[in-house]
């Protein structure tokens, strides 16, 4: 059985390459066997792919599920009555969404991972939290979106919460000012999805000619730049502009997905996204799915030992990225660090998603 107590005894950014390789080989092999037994479509897929059973695998040999399969199949490894929450990915309208089934244990692991990762960046004291979103996102507590899950996940870091947008996604300038005045001079945390911060916070402030002065603010944002690259906003420009209207200097992007909630990849002050002990990443060449060298662009595959109620421990994403190095980021965090370049062209991954039908 997976020893989650052992995983959570470890600090998030302390394990070096050799040890992590050994641990991930063990953990992921065990999870592959576990899910093969309990999740019928996953077991069927592994059989079709002729993945050998009861054999130790290295991380890169662990079978990967194309992320799109979570949209087409109910991939769950627990009895229906122990499903505690069902999470959906945030697809645009008309698109199918992923459905991720969580039991209380898996939800607890995910929350613990997030707490340890966040704690490494801003400490264990809870902070006033300004959420750049509408409280309406949380309306249905049992069936929640990736957006809602992000807000709920981050709310554990909060001493008090203020929602910066009203139910119609308009900036609640008065409410924000009231909140900020109350905690003047204190460290405050600001959280939101990248495109929501840009479109509904930054743009609105610009339009109103308003700005804030939050030199002790820490802004954390995720969800990707895809919707912003359409407006040709780069990560660097995002940072610059946000600093301009808020005075915030500490801005952390993160990479994460509904299919592996909690074990997010946080951006350090050097602009690198970091894998922690709760996750790992490799990149693969689009033409033959061979593992890329560091510095080489490839399709991102993500791993997490926390996926216990569903077979999401090894997922091939639809994102492209470059692994920059391992254990030697100048910020001092151990583990791989990387950059995400954006979405791959849909056609490239087609051959991979089709594997299941075979």
């Amino acid at each position, binding site marked *: 059985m997976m020893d989650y107590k052992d995983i959570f005894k470890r600090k998030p950014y302390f394990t070096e390459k050799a040890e992590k390789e050994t641990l991930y080989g063990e953990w992921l092999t065990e999870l592959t066997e576990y899910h093969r037994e309990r999740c019928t479509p996953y077991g069927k897929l592994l059989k079709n792919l002729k993945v050998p059973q009861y054999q130790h695998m290295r991380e890169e040999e662990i079978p990967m599920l194309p992320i799109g399969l979570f949209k087409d199949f109910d991939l769950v490894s627990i009895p229906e009555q122990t499903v505690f929450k069902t999470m959906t990915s945030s697809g645009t309208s008309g698109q199918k969404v992923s459905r991720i089934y969580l039991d209380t244990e898996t939800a607890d692991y995910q929350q613990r991972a997030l707490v340890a990762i966040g704690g490494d960046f801003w400490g*264990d*004291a809870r902070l006033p939290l300004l959420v750049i979103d509408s409280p309406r996102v949380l309306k249905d*507590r049992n069936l929640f979106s990736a957006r809602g899950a992000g807000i709920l996940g981050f*709310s*554990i870091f909060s001493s008090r919460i203020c929602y910066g947008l009203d139910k119609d996604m308009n900036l609640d300038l008065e409410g924000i000012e009231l909140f900020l005045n109350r905690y003047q001079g204190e460290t405050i945390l600001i959280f939101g999805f990248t495109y929501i911060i840009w479109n509904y916070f930054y743009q609105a402030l610009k339009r109103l000619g308003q700005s804030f002065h939050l030199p002790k603010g820490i802004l954390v944002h995720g969800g990707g730049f895809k919707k912003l690259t359409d407006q040709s906003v780069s990560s660097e420009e995002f940072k610059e502009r946000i600093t301009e209207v808020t005075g915030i200097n500490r801005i952390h992007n993160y990479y994460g997905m509904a299919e592996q909630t909690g074990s997010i990849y946080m951006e350090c002050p050097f602009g690198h996204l970091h894998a922690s002990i709760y996750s790992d990443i490799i990149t693969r060449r689009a033409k033959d799915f061979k593992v890329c060298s560091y510095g080489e662009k490839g399709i991102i595959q993500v791993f997490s030992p926390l996926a216990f109620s569903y077979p999401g421990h090894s997922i091939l994403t639809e994102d492209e990225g470059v692994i920059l190095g391992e254990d030697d980021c100048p910020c001092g965090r151990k583990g791989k660090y990387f950059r995400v370049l954006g979405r791959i062209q849909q056609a490239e991954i087609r051959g991979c998603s089709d594997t299941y039908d075979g």
Partner: protein
Amino acid sequence: MTNLEIYNRMFIRDLRVKEEDLPGLKYRGIRTWDSLGHMDLIADLEEKYDIHISTSDVMNFSSYEKGMEVLAKYGVII
């Protein structure tokens, strides 16, 4: 009101449970004690006892009984 009475009252109000349901009650064990309910409960307890609980102790506050152990760390004896 004693510390125990305050403690129970906050559970009953924030998580909409009855007093007899409290022993053995676990975080995520009932619908209302999810992460939203949890943060409401923690914020109310902090206000009533005038303490600040750390993020990791919010995680450690995993049941009705565990919560008492956590609060003891902050000098609140129930």
